[in-house]
């Protein structure tokens, strides 16, 4: 059965090229072993199998089923008014391609998205055929991330959820007014409705499994979404407040932020940007990280006086400089959550500190060995010997100057968080 053929290469080029602006590539969130009759496993943290020349993780075969589309969204390369070559995979062709990539350890599985053919439901049905073939014909037990098409019916979303590990619906534009401006055929409801279906499906499946241990699991790795950054005038406060509201839903695992890259140059509704806003995107990931792992609230990171993130300092340091009264923190006494608030101390080193200090008071050289970045932390802590020169004596302005001097080089080649880890 060789449905993969010469034409596949060209389709791959077109349909992978059109899918690449979706940031998410995570294969994380679910651990599933294997029985001998199937092919594949999933591992909880996800596995990145390669990194492209832009430094992004390649974990899944991320691809569109087709780039035909009935919509005309301003920010999208596949909009119907664009004169690009259109093509589509057959279900078996794409399933076989996934399997062959998987067997060579190129990928963790498939990330299937699509342009909208005819109508949302028709598109979902075609996508379902691919994942069904993978799971039922090829007995594929690896990772499947499936996009839910905005506007698709509840029945089809629920069906898809039985095959997929993760589902996502992209918000793309952080405010409804701007979404309507750029994607006239969409509104927030067309995005939030499938999000609700996914959530309901997950909750029902969790209930079922309380009763029947072997009830099928529904989207075990939860859902995610993506927002485009810098295509509209939405502030970081709007973005992070929205993200924080999404994270309150039990099904939500990740919000991705994608610095806007102009793919359509002739649209006056969109800004002209020389380079994508990568620093801002990075700061948003850091802020997102603080909300998920450091117990920060969105309104601690951004507020009405500071609606946008500071591009010169990371949001944790930014918060610390606005709150000198919180410091210094005595690392030998303070509880874990308080230590986590110190700039330069991460989850790993905070845990090491709390475990070790009962054996004796920790000194700055010990902290350094444990991975504390003393260049930043020194202004905010007391340990065995350090204490004189904290942010209170030196003033936040001075510390800010000191730290940003040291950071200029680091900021120049700002790195995107390796975002697929640590869910």
């Amino acid at each position, binding site marked *: 059965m*060789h449905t*993969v053929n010469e034409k*596949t*290469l060209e389709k*791959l*080029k077109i349909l*992978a*090229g059109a*899918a*690449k*602006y979706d940031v998410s590539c995570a294969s994380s969130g679910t651990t599933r*072993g*294997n*029985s*001998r*009759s*199937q*092919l*594949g*496993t999933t*591992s909880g943290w996800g*596995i*990145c*199998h*390669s*990194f*492209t*020349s*832009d*430094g*992004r*993780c*390649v974990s899944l*075969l*991320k691809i569109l089923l087709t780039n035909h589309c009935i919509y005309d969204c301003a920010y999208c390369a596949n909009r119907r008014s664009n004169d690009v070559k259109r093509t589509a995979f057959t279900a078996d062709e794409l399933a076989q*391609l996934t399997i*062959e*990539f998987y*067997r*060579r*350890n*190129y990928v963790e599985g498939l990330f299937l998205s699509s342009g909208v053919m005819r109508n949302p439901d028709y598109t979902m049905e075609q996508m379902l055929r691919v994942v069904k073939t993978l799971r039922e014909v090829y007995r594929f037990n*690896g990772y499947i991330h499936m996009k839910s098409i905005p506007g698709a019916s509840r029945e089809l979303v629920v069906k898809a959820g039985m095959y997929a590990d993760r589902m996502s619906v992209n918000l793309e534009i952080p405010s409804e007014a701007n979404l309507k401006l750029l994607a006239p055929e969409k509104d927030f409801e067309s995005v939030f409705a499938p999000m609700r279906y996914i959530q309901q499906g997950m909750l029902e499946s969790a209930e079922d499994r309380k009763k029947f241990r072997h009830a099928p699991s529904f989207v075990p790795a939860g859902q995610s979404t993506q927002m485009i950054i810098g295509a509209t005038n939405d502030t970081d406060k709007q973005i992070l407040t929205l993200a924080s509201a999404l994270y309150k839903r039990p099904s939500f695992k990740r919000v991705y932020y994608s610095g806007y*890259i102009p793919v359509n140059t002739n649209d006056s509704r969109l800004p002209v940007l020389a*380079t*994508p806003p*990568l620093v801002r995107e990075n700061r948003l990931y850091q802020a997102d990280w603080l909300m998920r792992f450091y117990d920060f609230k969105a309104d601690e990171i951004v507020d009405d006086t500071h609606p946008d993130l500071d591009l010169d300092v990371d949001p944790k340091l930014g918060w610390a400089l606005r709150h000198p009264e919180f410091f210094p923190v005595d690392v030998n006494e303070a509880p874990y959550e308080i230590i986590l608030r110190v700039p330069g101390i991460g989850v790993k080193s905070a845990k*090491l500190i709390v*475990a*070790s*200090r009962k*054996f004796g008071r*920790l000194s700055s050289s*010990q902290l350094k*060995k*444990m991975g504390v970045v003393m260049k930043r932390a020194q202004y905010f802590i007391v340990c065995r010997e350090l204490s004189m020169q904290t942010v209170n004596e030196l003033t936040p302005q001075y510390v800010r100057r000191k730290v940003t001097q040291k950071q200029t080089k680091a900021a120049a*080649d700002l*790195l*995107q968080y*390796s975002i697929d880890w640590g869910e």
Partner: protein
Amino acid sequence: MTLFIYDHTFDGILSCIFYAYEHKTFPDAILSDADQRPLFIDEWHHIETDEKKSQRVWTALERKLSKSAQNMVLLVWLSELPETEMLLFGYFRKIIDNQHGFEMNFGDSDVLRVKEIAWKVNGEAEKIRQFVRFQKTKDGIFFAPISAQYNVLALVAPHFRSRYPDQPWIIYDTARNFGLYYDTHSLQEVTFSLQDLKSFKSRKLENEKLSETEIYYQDLWKEYFETIAIKERFNPKLQRQHMPKRFWKYLTEMQ
């Protein structure tokens, strides 16, 4: 300077501990027969590996170490770093001489170092799980050469075994000249002749050894890999940071 000579096995290190406590003599260095001896040795002891004694030491350690700390000790052993013997010896002494729970004292340099090395070895195993690239051969075996920094082959084998239960594979560590062969039922160690090894070191198998469609899938993968990079975000430094250059020679997409 006091020197212990041992047989370069994990049981051997445990036997060193037994000997040291029995004779109240503690080494400044632990070497195997093959290692070069340092100058100015005052005394040296040849430590016989005795499984009964090493078992007694391990049982004592098991009582004081959590499962995860026991695992870390094993990872340190697999690092094969020159400091391994003395680090483990020092660590075991501290664990034996202190109360239960000393493994959490990361203010202690040995305890912290054991954790650091264990992280590194785990990290290397993870890199291998990420960057193994199988090539399908004519006889249907999926072959992947690797060159691991630490001896992690045994750590990664279970992952590939459960992932591909119906797929025969060989993962071969060219740095240590041994590999594991999974025949869809069991795992066994394999060693190739030096001549064969030479040809694996040149990254790719010769075309006549590959299955008919192998090159085609490699081309598809390379095309995919090229296509999905976003040129406006070009950042080769970040790429190297996540995917160090030393792995590139066996990565299909980097050829």
